[in-house]
């Protein structure tokens, strides 16, 4: 609110400065109230996420248990105000773990698309706490650049083993958002920049990794998938993001 007042006074000063100097003594200053467009109630965020993966099969793709992810989210306040409200939105994470498993290049890509249902409440003038539930679906794509793989075209190279797995997911998180600042121009939306941190837990269906050649069926040949154990694309996670509300 203090920033809004500051901007209004600045607009008044601008009007005063724009007037001819001679007229300054004769014309009473006109009070111009800078009006802003009403808030849409949208929040866009971009950040990073660190998520602990479950299952021994994840070891083939990472030297530790954590996967780094990019997270993008959009939400809309369906009720309430900036200070208290309920939101609905969508959330997308993309993560990748890559390593070498016994000398073989390995990679595991994760994509999670979730529907987000959240609530927030301002507890201090710059601090808002929030919580959310996010049901969704997660897609895992595991790949190996393994040279013992048969080529359908025996003169080909760079063949890989791969597997794609879809699973239902649900995550719950709670966190806090710190308001960094606002940009308020007359007759424009007030844009507010936030830094958010949240932690939570994600549940998702496990899969037993069985990577097979991605070349399709070959006549007279039966391919045996490479079994790498189970992976559970969910667990403890932490999100850090920058968010913009307007």
């Amino acid at each position, binding site marked *: 609110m203090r920033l809004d007042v500051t901007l209004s006074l600045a607009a008044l000063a601008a009007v005063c400065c724009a007037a001819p100097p001679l007229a300054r003594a004769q014309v009473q200053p006109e009070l111009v109230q800078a009006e802003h467009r009403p808030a849409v109630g949208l929040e866009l965020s971009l950040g990073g996420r660190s998520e*602990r993966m479950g*299952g*021994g*099969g994840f*070891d*083939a793709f*990472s*030297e*530790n*248990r*954590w996967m780094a992810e990019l997270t993008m989210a959009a939400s809309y306040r369906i009720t309430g105000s900036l200070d208290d409200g309920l939101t609905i939105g969508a959330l997308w994470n993309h993560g990748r773990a890559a*390593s*070498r*498993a*016994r*000398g*073989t290049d390995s990679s595991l890509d994760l994509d999670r698309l979730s529907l987000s249902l959240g609530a927030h409440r301002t507890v201090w003038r710059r601090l808002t706490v929030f919580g959310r539930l996010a049901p969704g679906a997660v897609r895992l794509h595991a790949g*190996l650049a*393994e*040279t*013992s*793989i*048969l*080529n359908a075209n*025996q003169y080909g190279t760079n063949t890989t*083993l791969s597997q794609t797995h879809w699973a239902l997911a649900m995550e719950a998180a709670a966190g806090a958002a710190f308001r960094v600042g606002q940009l308020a121009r007359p007759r424009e939306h007030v844009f507010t920049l936030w830094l958010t941190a949240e932690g939570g837990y994600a549940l998702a269906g496990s899969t*037993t990794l069985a*990577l097979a*050649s991605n070349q399709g069926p070959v006549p*007279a*040949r*039966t*391919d*045996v998938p*490479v*079994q*790498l*154990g*189970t992976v559970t694309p969910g*667990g*403890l996670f932490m999100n850090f993001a920058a968010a913009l509300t307007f």
Partner: protein
Amino acid sequence: MKGKSIAFWGLAMSLAAVGCGPRSDFWDAPVDGAQPFALADAVAIADPSAGRVVLLTTDAARNVRERSVPLQRGYRAATLAPDRSKLFVVSAGDDGKLPPAGQTAQTPALQIVTTAGQTTYPLSQALDGLALDPRGQWVVLYAGGSSTELVSNPNELLLVDLTQPPSPGVNPVSHTLRSFGGKPQRFTFTEPLELPGGTRRLLIVETEQDVAVVDLLQPAAPEITIQLSSGQDATPAHPQGVAVSDGDPGPNDVRLAIREDDGNVVVATMLPATARDFSPELNLTAVGSTPTDMAWVRTDAGVLSLAVMVPQSTKAVLVDPTTGLTQDVALPAAYSRLSLVTAQSGESGSTGVAPVDVALLWNGAGSGNGGVAFWELGRVAGRPYRSVETVGVTAGVVSVTDVGGAHPELKILGTRQATFFLLDLQARTAAPFVTASSGVTLLPSTTGDRAWAYVQGSSQLASVDLVTLHPQDMRDERPISSLFEIAAADDPAHAARSLVALTQQGTWGATVYDAAAVGGADAHTAVAGILLEGTDAP
């Protein structure tokens, strides 16, 4: 409030610690040291850096199953049993080092791995040399050349009786050879012998300069040492091989022949003794120049003789074990090796009740030509043998491989040239096969009706029908490192068999064919990443 805060941060730190642990060492273990072995019903891959043996089995439908058998830490060596029933693995355990964090210390051990399970014999020390009894009863462990011990005694042997359960101090039993400067070079397990004091088996240990005879009935008892010399001075002679004969029925004619590198042969006859059940009586016989091979043979009227190959003189020498008298047999070529083929050649008993042996003569790896010959022992007027019949093998034979199975009369003769021969001992024929390159490896089928041919590193593979002599080429989809024929795990009669072409690229792969249908059907199963499947895999 302060207490709650500490509890919160403690919980957070604990969760972080749980989540930040490194992954299993398995995933960073190199695959370089892995080594394949062909069990009768599985391909066993010793994977020492991952601390396991991978067993790859198949069924009649070519379905492939992989499973891991964990090994002790400190892998030293692995050897396959002669009958392919077991894989013997020696591990040093932690061997004085601290075990990995959170794990109990492991001691040296001999692990015997089969598709049915594994047995472990704890050892008193870490040894890396393995000598196996062809009859499957004994294993001898000794300090081989790759020992990493700071100090080791190469003459200290551990004898494991595989028919008995492990028992500290009893099985394995330790036996230190009395040494005069030598250390073990070769081990020979005899068949049961009618020795004075009873039937028993012997372990013959050749060192660089003497031969030790260990009584396997009393493996801890002191051995008999036969010191070798030229007979003219004290210069030590070096044993090059031994041959053992049980002689005729009765206890006093067991003979041990020792081939020396100085042109002599020592015949030790085991006779009754006072201090022990038997003691050797030695007889040194000069055969002219360095003998390269020898065997006990039955000559005329079943008389026992020692046949010794002396290629430097282009002859063989027959040694009478009783008198030491020798008879030279001139040969048409400088044959250096001989194998008795009496039973397979159909000549057994050809002279009535007294058998006369037939020997196959062939060149050793060091010789260049001369092919093979059949030496029919016996005697005819004017010469001490019945016949020496050469077979028109034009290339120097460097290996003789038994076909076995339904065709024991067949042998595959390997040469250095781009050719090999199929020798029929009964028909006395040698069918040549020309190969596209030298270095072709031949693998007889267990059934004996065909042989597989391949070149390491090439994807070319051929099936040779040993009855019709028809070869059929085929091509695998990747370079073949080794080829194995194994029995299907779900077929107790072992009638269904799989041909496994192993490639050692990447983390190893295999192509599995139906051994009976190869050439007629291209259906196969492809396996990749054999060494990649971790212990977490189902």
